[in-house]
């Protein structure tokens, strides 16, 4: 890596924010140990960040609740106070969530799942492809054929329903390629039957649209 590349790629910020892969980090370290300008920026950046953390540690977080004194009341209703009620309700909610997870969600996730090999293409003529979802499974898979005009480090997949609301946004993870098959496991409950589209964008340019994929979700065992 040379200094111009480091500057253009905001390498100092990426390094300090721990956004590099191992290889990229080693490459930048090899550079700034030799480059006095980048060494200065990294050193001062690290000093700044450590002192910012130090200041914030001493400062109460926003929304910190000041202590409240309990109002005197009858013994019968003395437990009906926020400091008692709120944690109690939170415990009840937690118990309900854990029970649901143990009795419903985890068993569904532990069932074996046959993955579909069908690949959705962005070129769509005529009827959008139909994807049948087994509602007994928590997840279903979709595969997208991606052919981007250029390679990006990662991509964002934006799923919209027929009223154009975003139901889910998924990051592709590190790709760095332009053409690939994107395999996704998606939560079935977010995709009730209906028409959808997936809009593919580069992670670094969320306003740029690369490809659109239309598809229709149906419940398995039902005919449209």
């Amino acid at each position: 890596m040379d200094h111009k590349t480091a500057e253009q790629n905001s390498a100092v910020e990426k390094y300090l924010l721990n956004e590099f892969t191992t290889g990229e980090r080693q490459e930048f370290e090899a550079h700034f140990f030799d480059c006095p300008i980048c060494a200065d920026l990294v050193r001062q950046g690290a000093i700044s960040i450590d002192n910012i953390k130090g200041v914030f540690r001493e400062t109460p977080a926003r929304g910190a609740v000041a202590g409240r004194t309990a109002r005197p009341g009858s013994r019968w209703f003395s437990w009906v106070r926020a400091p008692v009620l709120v944690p109690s309700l939170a415990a009840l909610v937690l118990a309900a969530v854990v029970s649901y997870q143990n009795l419903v969600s985890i068993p569904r996730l532990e069932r074996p799942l046959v993955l579909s090999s069908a690949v959705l293409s962005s070129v769509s003529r005529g009827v959008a492809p139909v994807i049948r979802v087994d509602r007994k499974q928590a997840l279903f898979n979709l595969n997208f054929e991606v052919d981007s005009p250029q390679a990006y480090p990662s991509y964002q997949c934006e799923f919209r329903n027929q009223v154009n609301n975003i139901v889910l946004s998924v990051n592709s993870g590190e790709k760095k390629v332009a053409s690939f098959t994107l395999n996704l496991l998606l939560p079935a409950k977010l995709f009730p039957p209906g028409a959808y589209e997936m809009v593919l964008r580069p992670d670094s340019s969320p306003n740029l649209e690369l490809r659109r994929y239309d598809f229709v979700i149906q419940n398995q065992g039902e005919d449209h």
Partner: protein
Amino acid sequence: MILASRSCSARTSSYRSFTPSLYDRVYRVSVNLDRHTFDRGYIERLIQGDAEAERHFARYFGDLLVIKLRARLRSPQLIEDARQETFVRVLHVLRNKGGLEYPERLGAFVNAVCENVLLETFRSGSRLQQLPEDAPEPVDQGASAESEFVTRERKALVRNLLSKLSDTDREILRQLFLEERDKDEICREFRIDRDYLRVRVHRALARCRVVLDKGEQTAALTNAAGQ
């Protein structure tokens, strides 16, 4: 945990410890350290044990080594051990091999030696394992485990700067650096993308740099005037 290289205790005992002086740590004046190029004369002075050259060498590379090492090692003691071992090995090679073929690449050589020290640390099967690639920064063990970069004077300057930032910028920095919240979640909450998050961090750090530089220059001048 004792590094395998520590078995060469006879070798290590002949070099002074490369710990910056108290003055350096409190009133580190970056202008004296920066933009330094390394030449044959500098290497010669290091080889001959020139105190000023060794002090500069320790200050210049000491910070960079800590920044590099703490992203890979959990324990402050391991970090310090690795830093000292790197210094010892670099000087050992310079003195026994009579210098470097390309003195201007001294930085790359220090970095390469540090990489080897790190590999040996990991291979020696330390209880304190290497951090995975995408692991968050190691959690501080407590308020007393503040970095050596933090001083009362710097915090005062930074506190003043933070008070002048917008609420949004201040909250972004808090969530990013103190709470170590996922960056994508921060971007979603504040409706910005990762590039723009980086830009905001860059601006905040640039302002911090100016404030800290000015503060340290003032402190150094005050100290010099007092002497």
